[in-house]
C-alpha cells in the first residue's frame, strides 16, 4: 500500500528525474558531484527558490501572480537607493524588513484587486506588473546601482561557509541568505500543512464557493497569499542585491515564467488546490539544474533556449498526461467491488 502511494506521488518522479539528470551531467562533465558545484547549485537556488515558495501558495489558492519579479525589482531599487541617499550604516536587517513591507503593500494591492474584481489573476497581475515597472523606471529613475550601502555591501562578502574542490582548485561559498531560503520553506511548509490558514488556501483552491460556505474568509485568504508573495518578493529583491553586489533592472527578467514553470514541474496544479512544498523545492532544483548545466551538457549556446523549452515541456507534459490518462480510467473498480461483496 505504502509503495503504491509513493508511486502515485509527483515528488517521487521528480526525484527520479533529478537523479537521472545529475548522473548524466556527471558522466558527461565529471563536474556535477563536486563540492563546489553542489554549493553553487544551492546558491543559485536561493532567489528563485524563495520566489517559488511564495508562488506555490498563490498557485495552490487557485491564483497566479506574474508581478513578483517586478515587486522584487521595485523593492530592490527603492531600498538600496534610499539607503544610499541617507548613507545608512545600521544593521542590514532593516533593509530586508523595509523591502518586505514595501513588497507586502504591493502584494496587498494585487490581493485586494483579485478579491474584489474576481477576474483571472494572470491578467490583474500583468496589469500591476507594468505599473510596478513604470514606477521603478519612471518615478524611481532606476537602472543600475553598483555601489551598495555599506551594510548591504558587507553582507555580499559574508558567507556561511566555503568549500574548495581539491582536484580543480575551484572554490565556492555559501551566502548567509541560504538561511532565508531554508526559513521560508519551513514557514511555508508549516503554514500549508499545520495551520487552518494553509488548509484554507488548499480549500479555496479546490472550491472557492465551498470554502466560503464552510466559513473560510475567502477574500482574506486571497489577499493573504498575494501579500505573502509580495513580502517574499521584497525580501528576495534585497537578497539578490546581497548575493550579486549590485542592482540591475533586468536581474529578474523572465523570472515570472521560469518560476511558474518550476512550481508546475514540482507538481502543483496550475488550476489550484494541490501541490506540495517539497515538490516545489524539487521543481526549482530541477529547473536550475537544467538552466545552469546546459554548457556542461555541451548544448551549443544558440540552442540553449530551445533546450530549456524542450525540457520544461517534457516535464510538464508528463504530469499533465498522467492525469489525462487517469481521467479516462474508472477510479474505483466496480467489478471488483462486486466480487468483494459476493465473497
Amino acid at each position, binding site marked *: 500500500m505504502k509503495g503504491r502511494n509513493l508511486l502515485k506521488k509527483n515528488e517521487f518522479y521528480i526525484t527520479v528525474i533529478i537523479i537521472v539528470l545529475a548522473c548524466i551531467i556527471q558522466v558527461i562533465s565529471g563536474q556535477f558531484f563536486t563540492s563546489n558545484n553542489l554549493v553553487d547549485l544551492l546558491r543559485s537556488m536561493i532567489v528563485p527558490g524563495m520566489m517559488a515558495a511564495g508562488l506555490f501558495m498563490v498557485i495552490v489558492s487557485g491564483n497566479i501572480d506574474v508581478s513578483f519579479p517586478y515587486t522584487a525589482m521595485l523593492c530592490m531599487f527603492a531600498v538600496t537607493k534610499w539607503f544610499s541617499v541617507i548613507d545608512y550604516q545600521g544593521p542590514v536587517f532593516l533593509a530586508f524588513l523595509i523591502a518586505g513591507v514595501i513588497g507586502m503593500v504591493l502584494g496587498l494591492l494585487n490581493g485586494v484587486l483579485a478579491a474584489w474584481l474576481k477576474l483571472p489573476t494572470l491578467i490583474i497581475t500583468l496589469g500591476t506588473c507594468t505599473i510596478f515597472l513604470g514606477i521603478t523606471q519612471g518615478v524611481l529613475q532606476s537602472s543600475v546601482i553598483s555601489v551598495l550601502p555599506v551594510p548591504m555591501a558587507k553582507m555580499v562578502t559574508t558567507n556561511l561557509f566555503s568549500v574548495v574542490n581539491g582536484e580543480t582548485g575551484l572554490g565556492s561559498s555559501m551566502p548567509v541568505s541560504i538561511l532565508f531560503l531554508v526559513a521560508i520553506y519551513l514557514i511555508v511548509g508549516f503554514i500549508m500543512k499545520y495551520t487552518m490558514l494553509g*488548509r484554507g488556501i488548499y480549500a479555496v483552491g479546490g*472550491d472557492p464557493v465551498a470554502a466560503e460556505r464552510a*466559513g473560510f474568509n475567502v477574500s482574506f485568504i486571497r489577499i493573504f497569499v498575494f501579500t505573502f508573495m509580495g513580502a517574499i518578493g521584497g525580501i528576495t529583491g534585497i537578497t539578490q542585491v546581497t548575493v550579486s553586489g549590485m542592482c540591475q533592472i533586468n536581474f529578474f527578467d523572465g523570472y515570472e515564467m521560469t518560476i511558474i514553470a518550476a512550481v508546475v514541474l514540482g507538481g502543483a496544479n496550475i488550476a489550484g488546490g494541490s501541490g506540495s512544498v517539497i515538490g516545489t523545492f524539487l521543481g526549482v532544483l530541477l529547473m536550475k539544474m537544467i538552466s545552469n548545466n546546459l554548457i556542461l551538457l555541451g548544448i551549443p549556446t544558440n540552442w540553449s533556449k530551445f533546450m530549456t523549452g524542450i525540457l520544461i515541456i517534457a516535464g510538464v507534459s508528463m504530469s499533465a498526461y498522467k492525469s489525462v490518462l487517469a481521467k479516462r480510467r474508472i477510479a474505483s473498480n466496480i467489478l471488483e467491488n462486486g466480487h468483494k*461483496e459476493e465473497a
Partner: protein
Amino acid sequence: MSEILLQAKQISKHFGGVTALDKVDLTIKKGEIHCLMGENGCGKSTLIKIISGFYRPDGGSITFEGKEYERLSIAESIGLGIQVIYQDMSIFPNLTVAENIAINNELYNHRKLVNWKSVKSIAKEALDHIGIELPLQAVVGELSVADKQLIAIARAILNNSKLIIMDEPTSALTRKEVDKLFKVIRQLQKEGISTLFVSHKLDEVFEIADQFTVFRNGKLVVADSAKNINDEQFVYYMTGRKLEEAAFTPEKIDHDRAILKVENLGLTNGFEKISFEIHPGEILGITGLLGSGRTELAKTLFGLYSATEGHIYIDGTEVRIKTPMDAIRHKIAYVPEDRLTEGLFLTQSIENNMIVSNIDRLRTAKKMVDYEKGHQDSLSWVKNLGIKLNELSDGIQTLSGGNQQKVVLGKWLETEPRVLILNGPTVGVDIAAKFDIHAYLRTLAEKMNLAILLISDDISEVLNNCNRILIIKNGRIVSEHVNTELDPHKLQELVTGGKEETA
C-alpha cells in the same frame, strides 16, 4: 417538542428584477423534521442561504432560540448551531475525506493550527455516528457522488448542531442510502436536533417529515403537519394543478427490429457482459444502485469511454463508437447526469445552448451557419417542450432547473436521434416539469419511434415510464423485467438485492 427553534418572519429577497422570496414565514420547532417543498425556482435554496447567512435578506427577520436577528452572517449562523448541506454539497475535491469532514469543526472552534490526529478521530467519529465506512485518507475527488453526499452529512452533524438544513440531500442517493440517511435524521431527532429537509420526492416527505411548508413563486402556500395531507393535495399545493401519471404500455413495438443492440459489452473496471436490445417505440429502463456501472455504460454507449470488449449494433450493423462524434453520427443522443457541468454552457444564451449539438447540420451550402434556422428550430422546441422563458437570447442561468433540463433535452432532439439515452433526467426537477418531461418521452417513443434508454434510480420514474427494466449490479445485468409484472416495492427489493434492512 413544542418549543420553537427557528422562526423566519416575512422574509423577502430580490435578485435584480426577480423576486425570489416574497414575505415568507417558516417555523421550525426543536427536534422537528421539517420539509420545505416547492417547484424549481420557488425560493427554497434562497431561504436556506438567508438562514445560513450566505445572502442578506431584503426584509423580515429571523428568530433563533428566542433571539431576533435582522440578518445572520455565515459565522454567526454556524455559531448558533445551524449547519447546511448545500445542493451542490460544497465539498473540497482536492482534500481528503477526513479533512473534509473535520474542517468545519476546526473552523468553528477557531483553531489556528491543525491537529492531524484530532482531524482523523473527529472524522472517524462522525462516520461511525452515521454508520458508514470510508477510507479517511482518500482524496474526495476520486469518490462517487453518493460518498460525497455522505461526507457532507457526516460533516454537518458535528459541532453540536441544533438545526441541520439539507437542500435536496437525496437527489444523488440510492434508496438504500436514503434509508441510511433517514435513520441518521431520526437519530438526530432523538438527540433533539431539528432537520430542515428540501426534496422533490413526495414519498420521502411522507416517510420522514413531521411538518411541511410549501412555497410557490416565492410565496408561502401552506404550512401544516404531514399527517393532515395526501399525495394529491400536495401536488396541487406545489404546482397549482392536478397531475397524474399512468404506467407506460406502448402498443406497437416492432420486436423484430432492434435499433440498438449491445452484445457482451465490457469496460475494464466498469462493467462486463452487458447484452440487451432496444426496439423502436420502446423505453428501456436501467436501474441499480449508484456505482453499479450504469453511468459508465451510458457513457460507453455515447463514446465517452471506449468499450474494451463486445459489440454494438445499430440497425443490425456493427458500429464502433469511440467518441461522442461517432455516437452522434449513429444518431445516438445522451442527456447527461450532471446538468450544470456536463450539459449546460452557463455563460451562454439559451439559444446557443439549444443549437450547440446541431451546429454542424445548420451549415448552408456555403459552409456558413444558418443561425436564423437555428433560431426557428429553437423556438419550435421551446413550444413543443413548454420551456418557460422570456427571450431565447437570455442567459441560460435565468432558467430554473426543470426548464434547463428541457433545454438539454431539446438540444438533443434537434439532432433527430434514433436512440436517446437519459441519465437521471429528472434529478432535482420539480414535479410539474418532471411530468412534462415524462409525457414527452412517451410521445417520442410512441409517435417518433425512438429507442429510449432511461437510466434512473427513481423507482417510480422507471416503473411508470419504461416498458422493460434491466437491473444492473456490480457492472453486470442481473435481471430483466416487464413493467407490468412489477410494483414499486418489488422493484425496490430487486435493486437493493432482495433482503433489505429495515429502517
